[in-house]
């Protein structure tokens, strides 16, 4: 068992002030790690050597590299250290192996050695090793190890020197970072064929960069409560892996995984910077590609209702909410919040919010979505926020913003095609909007080509409460069935049938009173009066004037059955002056996308 190895060697090395002479110990290599040389330097191998009782770190002098490369020295190999030296590095002893010979052995790890350094700290007395420690027991000899535990500015105990996040790599696992938690996710549960688990993520940041850390299963219990957003911690003894970009969009090639041995300690040092942002103005969002990440800051102009979406993957509903953000560029954009953030979002008082790590989408031109690692910071104390607030109070409040969609963004039900997204009439026909049983909404920019002069209005109930039902002429008055009243004169309301046309095609639409009045420029009642009064030319002139106007029409397409034939009917819900600014912006976008 341990007969083969020189038990007590590790302790001897650690406790001696100088290298023990005449000791040719036999130890087992538990692990070998290659440390790639930088530039001209050769690769070096770091080894863990065990004497059966304890294990400790060592470095192989490069002349021995061939032995490792030819696999003569490998994991679990037993070796005789024919020449070695020990160095004190940052309070720890590191054995430099200058020459070694492999010893015949075919087996696994001998004994159950524990980390000598850990043992040194926790136990006050040594167990005796081979040769008695020269300077007496724990007191003096473990001084180099003991000194380190004091929380000196250089960070950790013997858990590694203080590293900047930028220098973390999988090649070194003795490090400590001092960083602030800039984001902490919720605990997520999963279950798949391999079993169940839970995990959570945090993002750490220091002056040199940021890195994401994940804790699985037990580490969730250990660390989830302890880590608070915005506070600074020392982290050490965790594993550095290559980042899984699929889940991790933090700007670092690596990520950290918490392990059982990971140590995290709170730190009071506030000098670690808080959030670093790299804002894109809302007007410049169109220059970003879809699915890119960005940071934005803006004033929340509108908060929409909480909606719910059922995930196709998990079949579970989760909450979503849209908010409209505006900034000095004059542009507004829709940002979608999900889950808890959507539910808890309360701030209807036009606050400044900074978002980090939101994903750019192209829904309705440009839209933003909170990715799982995105963060939201309310009224942050940064200069951009103050500038925004100042601008908003001065002019932004009353400004008319151009949305990436249409200025009149109305959120209607069942919006499959975004109601505000402009479609050409060709697209309307191609996409067969309204031909399914669903009611579909869209907008189009078109010109009035023709208006039907017959049946342009109907007599409606004059009830001031707004009944609007068609009334029947009974000869002695107009009867409303719903109100059960008779009126002397009805109020005529438009039911205008128009043909609108753009550069691709034309469709017949129906416009009701409000819309038609805008187009005709005269209330239906007056127009009917003209017709009945016999003033044909004046009557006709209104129609002529109306034709040729260009508007942005907000439309509803629905299927109706017309003499047993299904027909799509297009109804106009709203009409507005075409917004040249946003339409030009849209065209610019489309041209840019052109090859």
């Amino acid at each position, binding site marked *: 068992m341990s007969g083969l190895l020189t038990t007590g060697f590790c302790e001897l090395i650690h406790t001696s002030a100088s290298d023990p002479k005449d000791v040719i110990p036999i130890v087992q290599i538990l692990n070998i790690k290659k440390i790639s040389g930088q530039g001209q330097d050769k690769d070096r191998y770091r080894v863990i050597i065990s004497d059966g009782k304890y294990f400790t770190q060592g470095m192989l002098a490069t002349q021995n590299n061939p032995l490792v490369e030819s696999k003569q020295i490998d994991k679990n190999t037993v070796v005789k250290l024919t020449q070695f030296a020990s160095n004190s590095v940052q309070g720890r002893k590191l054995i430099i192996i200058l020459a070694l010979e492999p010893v015949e052995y075919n087996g696994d790890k001998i004994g159950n050695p524990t980390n000598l350094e850990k043992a040194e700290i926790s136990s006050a007395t040594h167990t005796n090793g081979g040769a008695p420690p020269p300077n007496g027991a724990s007191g003096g000899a473990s001084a180099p190890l003991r000194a380190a535990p004091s929380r000196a500015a250089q960070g950790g105990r013997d858990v590694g020197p203080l590293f900047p996040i930028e220098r973390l790599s999988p090649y070194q696992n003795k490090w400590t970072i001092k960083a602030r938690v800039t984001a902490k996710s919720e605990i997520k549960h999963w279950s798949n064929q391999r079993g169940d688990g839970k995990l959570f993520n945090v993002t750490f940041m220091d002056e040199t960069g940021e890195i994401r850390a994940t804790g699985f299963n037990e580490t969730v219990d250990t660390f989830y409560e302890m880590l608070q957003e915005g506070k600074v911690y020392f982290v050490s003894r965790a594993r550095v892996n290559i980042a899984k970009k699929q889940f991790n969009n933090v700007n670092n090639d690596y990520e950290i995984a918490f392990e059982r041995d990971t140590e995290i300690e709170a730190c009071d040092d506030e000098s670690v910077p808080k959030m670093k942002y790299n804002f894109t103005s809302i*007007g410049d969002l169109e220059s970003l590609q879809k699915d890119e990440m960005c940071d934005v800051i803006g004033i929340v102009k509108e908060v929409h209702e909480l909606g719910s979406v059922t995930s196709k993957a998990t079949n579970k509903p989760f909450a979503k909410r849209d908010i409209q953000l505006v900034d000095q560029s004059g542009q507004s954009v829709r940002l979608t919040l999900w889950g808890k953030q959507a539910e808890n979002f309360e701030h209807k008082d036009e606050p400044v919010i900074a978002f980090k790590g939101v994903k750019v989408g192209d829904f309705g031109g440009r839209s933003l979505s909170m990715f799982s690692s995105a963060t939201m910071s309310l009224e942050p104390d940064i200069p951009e926020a103050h500038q925004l607030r100042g601008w908003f109070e001065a002019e932004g409040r009353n400004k008319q913003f151009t949305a990436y969609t249409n200025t009149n963004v109305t959120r209607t039900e069942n919006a499959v095609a975004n109601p505000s997204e402009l479609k050409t009439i060709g697209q309307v026909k191609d996409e067969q909007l309204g031909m399914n049983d669903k009611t579909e909404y869209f907008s189009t920019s078109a010109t009035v080509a023709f208006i039907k002069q017959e049946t342009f209005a109907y007599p409606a109930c004059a009830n001031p409460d707004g009944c609007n039902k068609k009334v029947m002429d009974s000869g002695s008055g107009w009867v409303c069935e719903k109100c059960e009243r008779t009126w002397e004169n009805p109020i005529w309301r438009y039911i205008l049938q128009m043909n609108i046309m753009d550069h691709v095609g034309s469709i017949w639409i129906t416009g009701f009173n409000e819309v038609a009045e805008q187009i005709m420029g005269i209330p239906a009642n007056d127009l009917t009066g003209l017709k009945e009064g016999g003033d044909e030319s004046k009557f006709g002139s209104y129609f002529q004037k109306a034709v040729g106007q260009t508007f942005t029409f907000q439309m509803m397409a629905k299927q109706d059955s017309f003499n047993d034939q299904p027909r799509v009917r297009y109804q106009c819900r709203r009409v507005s002056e075409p917004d*040249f*600014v946003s339409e*030009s*912006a849209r065209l*610019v976008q489309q*041209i840019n996308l*052109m090859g």
Partner: protein
Amino acid sequence: MAPLAPEPRINASLLAKYRGQTVRLPAKVVKIVGSTATVEASDGGQIGVHLGRDMHIADTYVEIIGSVKDDLSLKALTSINLGDRLDMKAVQAVIEFSQSSKGEGILV
């Protein structure tokens, strides 16, 4: 839109390219001092414009047709008033497209 104009539409950064030539410059009037106007082009650059005596700059946005002098100021030949609202971003896009291969032959 407007028929193809023989003069290219430019902004401040394109002035050097058309030194000595006649160009169109859509711009926002910043100030007028005597017969010299300072205007801001669609890319934000400011340009000095020498106006003739009979030129009336009435609106905030104008299009100046003129020749580019050696000192990169513009000697105005005529001007067109464009009202008090103009989407300079769209103007800038037009100018950029006309300079790039995308606009060749379509936009001047």
